[in-house]
């Protein structure tokens, strides 16, 4: 079973997620603050960390920065009620492999955890919308066209995610394999993390990432 840790400063929320995930994954720890989370991840090395974006002392970004080096095998999945694109994108750029909202259904959350552990990127409809927004229009000064633009196919995949389609449904609709859909999403995640597109670097700068 996937070894999962929950990081969130709200005890009630952690309790809710814990009871939802019990039996589906192996829960190996919880943390309620950034220092606690860094210590936990470094010591326990979970497979997947469910990471709150908003916490005092730097939020999810600070946890990833503090723990990622000591726990190279650990993957982070942002789980947040936050609506602000810059917070979500900042967490992804820090290294999270996906973003889901806190009102996600239990089976979808379990599925998302498994997909992250399998190395895939997990895009919720909202994250897909943020990315389409951030990459809207041509890059004003593409320093690296490979990274600063989305391909037509990637846009199409993101639009389907935003419309609420699952990967396998998207594969069926676009006439490609589910693996190809995953490859497109991973490519988008890579662009999201590495591109210097104005919107992205501005958001990152606001969170003092760069």
């Amino acid at each position, binding site marked *: 079973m996937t070894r999962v840790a929950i990081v969130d400063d709200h005890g009630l929320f952690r309790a809710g997620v814990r009871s939802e995930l019990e039996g589906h994954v192996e829960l190996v720890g919880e943390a309620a603050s950034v220092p606690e989370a860094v210590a936990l991840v470094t010591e326990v090395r979970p497979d997947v960390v469910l990471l709150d974006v908003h916490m005092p002392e730097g939020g999810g970004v600070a946890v990833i920065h503090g723990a990622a080096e000591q726990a190279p095998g650990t993957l982070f999945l942002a789980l947040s009620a936050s*609506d*602000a694109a810059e917070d979500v994108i900042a967490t992804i750029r820090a290294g999270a492999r996906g973003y889901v909202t806190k*009102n996600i259904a239990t089976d979808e959350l379990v599925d998302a955890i498994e997909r992250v552990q399998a190395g895939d990127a997990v895009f919720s*409809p*909202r994250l*897909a*919308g943020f990315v*389409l*927004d951030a990459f*809207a*229009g041509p890059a*004003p*000064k593409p320093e690296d066209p490979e990274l600063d633009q989305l391909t037509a196919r990637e846009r199409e995949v993101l*639009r389907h995610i*935003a*419309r*609420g*389609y699952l990967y396998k449904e998207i594969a069926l609709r676009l006439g490609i394999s589910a693996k190809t859909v995953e490859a497109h999403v991973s490519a988008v995640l890579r662009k999201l993390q590495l591109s210097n597109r104005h919107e992205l670097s501005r958001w990152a700068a606001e969170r003092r990432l760069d």
Partner: protein
Amino acid sequence: MASTPTRAPLRRAPSNWGPGVCAGLGRHLGIDPLIVRIAFVAAATAGGIGVVIYLLAWALIPAETAEGAEPRRWRTGRSTIEVAVGMALIVLSLLLTARALGLLWSDVIVWPTVLVAAGAGLLWRQSFAPTRTEKPEPAAPEEERRERTRVLSRSGFGAALVIAAGVVFLYVTGALTAARDAVLAAVVVAAVLGIIFAPWVTRLVRSLASEREERVRSQARAEMAAHLHDSVLQTLALVQKRADDPRAVAALARTQERELRAWLAGREGGHDRLAAALEGAAGDVERAHGVPVEIVVVGDRELDDRGEALVAAAREAMVNAAKFGNGSTVDVYAEARDGGELQVYVRDRGPGFDPDAVPPDRRGVRESIVGRMARHGGRAAIHSAPGAGTEVELTLPEAS
């Protein structure tokens, strides 16, 4: 530039080594910049007039930037010092030209005038600076304070330049020796007063500033409290009353969440924009039918009549999805595309149906979606199959 639509806008070209005047002019006129440069050099040898024109062009033609053009050199924050130096250089060159042409009656006024020009450039620049209302969004208090300090120090520097110009003028004309004793006395008195009162004045200024900050903060707090009282506290009271009805509690919580999000994102109230109008419709449907509606909007647009028709059709589609989707989440995706086309997808994961065998009670709803879109020059397509849910696709092309 309406008269020359095919020409490149008159902008100084980005350049590593110069202001880009010649390159910009050449691009604007559609000729090689080298010709422009030669013309300028030729004009410069003819009594220096080329130099004057070049400097004027540098000061007045906005530079091209990645974001589009700077509004005007006069109005940009960065170039204040450049403006001052430019003013000084322009005046200096004018004076030198006049001198060369024998129009100058005395060399005495040259340096004072140049100093005055630089100082005036700094001072006047402040009154051309964008006022706070012109800014797209209110600056953070920290930023605002820094900006104010910057303006003050520039104004002080400008005033100092102008005063220095006056002193230089008095000195070189010999008037200063006579006035020296009086000036010395005044300076000494001012210094003494300054030393005595400086701490008091500093304290006063500081306390005024902190008072103002405190007022702004308490206003913000009062506004926040009022909002929370009207929304969150009301909802919590309702939740307590309806605690025996989990569906109602969930619906209340979702509605409140949606409202709070809209408020935090600064787009509550006016539904005159696409995103806000669609979110409003989604909230209404969610409230009326107790089904979660997840909405993602990419891009945004002012709403005209056609846009409102689109929102109304989308609302019908959401109601439909909420009614016939067996309680599954309704996914709404809207995109305002670059070309001006608007697209909305409304999707449920219900039992779906065979579009060729539409039950009569759904025909009316279909009409109000398909018919409405057609009347406003748009399209509606309904994709469904038994067991595969239903998706309504609304497209509104750019107004022709």
